[in-house]
């Protein structure tokens, strides 16, 4: 578990370093205003994943989940 955390931290550092490198090299940048916020992608990755998880688990699943043999059961009464 600890190893994984270290790995994550390492990648996070890599991400920060690369962004700094890109800024230093003066790379051309496209996109909406949000793309110019520093470390935007960290936030977007985290929040986006959270939103997706919430929408899917919180909103869709209660609506759509059925028992596994739902169709078969529905077909059975014909």
């Amino acid at each position, binding site marked *: 578990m600890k190893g994984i955390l270290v790995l994550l931290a390492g990648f996070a550092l890599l991400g920060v370093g690369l962004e700094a490198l890109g800024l230093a090299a003066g790379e051309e940048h*496209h996109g909406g205003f949000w793309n110019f916020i520093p470390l935007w992608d960290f936030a977007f990755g985290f929040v986006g994943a959270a939103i997706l998880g919430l929408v899917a688990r919180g909103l869709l699943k209660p609506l759509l989940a059925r028992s596994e043999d739902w169709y078969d059961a529905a077909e059975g009464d014909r």
Partner: protein
Amino acid sequence: MNPLDWLAIPPLAHPGLWLALGALVTAIATATGVLGRRAASAPGILFAALAVFAASRAPSGSVDFRVARFDLVWYHADDLSVLFALVFSIVTLLGLLYGAHRLGPGETVAALLYAASAVATVLAGDWITFFVFWEAMAITSVALIWQGGLPESRRAGMRYLLVHAAGGAALFVGIALHASASGGVLDLGRLAATGPPFWFLLVGVGLNAAIPPLHGWLTDAYPEASTTGAVFCSALTTKTAVYALLRVFPGAEILVSLGVAMALYGVVFAVIENDFRRLLGYHIISQVGFMVAGVGIGTELALNGAAAHAYSHILYKALLFMGAGALIEATGRRRLTDLGGVFRSMPVAAILYLVGALSISGAPLFNGFISKSMTLSAAGEAHFYFAELFLSLAAVGTFLSVGLKLPWFAFFGKDRGIAVRPLPVNLLAAMAITAGLCLLYGVRPDLLYRMLPFAASYDPFTAGHLASNVQLLVGAAVLFALGFRRLAPTPTRNLDADWIYRGRPGRIARPLVTGARALGPVAQAVRSGALTAANRAIVRLAAPGALATGAVRRDPFSFRTPIGRTVLLAAMVVGWLLLASRL
């Protein structure tokens, strides 16, 4: 002349020819008993290798076969079509190798014919040829799904067939409308995205591209195919549709929104899916969404991106389905809730699966990165900022479910002490080769870029691109690490668009499915399906009362028209002609 140079001559350069030949040889060799069942895929592998070779050196240009005054362009090779033909051939070869230990003659022949039709579809230069092979693809893919062997495979295949028949109908109405509008010009080229022909073609092609809500067939049928069959299915049908969109509707703006919607739709459903092959199926929809959006953006870079993404996608998705198939073969289970902690028993397959998972997530140095970032950059450069944002979101979700959730709950997580069968060498070898290709293209993107249709130059390895991707992945990983328990799968199934024909509305068509379900082979499926009803109607019209007699009930279709009726009908025809021409 080097014998292999013969493959550069147009008729022989058609990879589909070699795949079809492979099917023929397999059929004859196994039917006559020359080849045992266990070696059924051997000739197929050989011929698929020839197909790869032929595709890799296919000369560009087109060959029209003047069949009956009809300029049928059955070989139209430019960068775009050769790219698809090549990757189709490669994945066929890999898929056959993957399944070599269990492929019977029927499945081998079906797979080869399916691949041959797909290759012939992308190499077609006119609408008629295109349509013929498109339909052949639908039929052969059903044959492949049926080889899944379970009762559910048969039923799902039947539904797949009916849905694709409807899509094919829409497509050819579109072709007919286009042909009559253009005065009989049937060349496969760019079309205006307006008017009835566009909508019909969009429905016909979009169904194969699994654009929601026309995607129900994909997640319905693919999980029911055999482990090998799913590999072929994942690679061919949807990508042929992407090819068609690239060829015909580049720059149709509606495709941008459709593509983005697809990308998100697939991701959201994948998050709550339990059957892991259906989960991967949802990610086909999501990834095809990237390509569709790329087509819609329509700049050279975007089109390049869509083509490159299709190429990469076929490889890593095949790898993912191979991994999923390996899980099923090793454990006999297909739901995440039944799995857990098998990493130690099958580390090689698990690691190879992770290569595919990192590729689809767009991790740098894997082949998903080099094509996905191309599409995203193109969206940004063309000022489709929100498209870029939402596609990034879809990428995050992809990593969340394919890269984190699936491997965590299947390979790691709670150890259930599942007994694991050893995996055959050929299976692992096929996975290793595919993973190798994913890594190769990830490290040397120029190998892929030089095959792309446009010359637009692109460098994926800028610090900005790398930073953005790494940060996204890390962000998602952190969230997963914090909240993975909330993402745990549950043993449920989720309603989706297949509800349209399987759920309550589908009951209208229930006689169809009832008929189809009662039947084993195709023959009988057709006999008591829709056509039976139609035929009975014909019988009633032509010979009312014929159904009541015993002989006819036994075989209602061998009835005889009373000859007096023929004479009477003749009188009616005469009468009609007398009347009609005087009106």
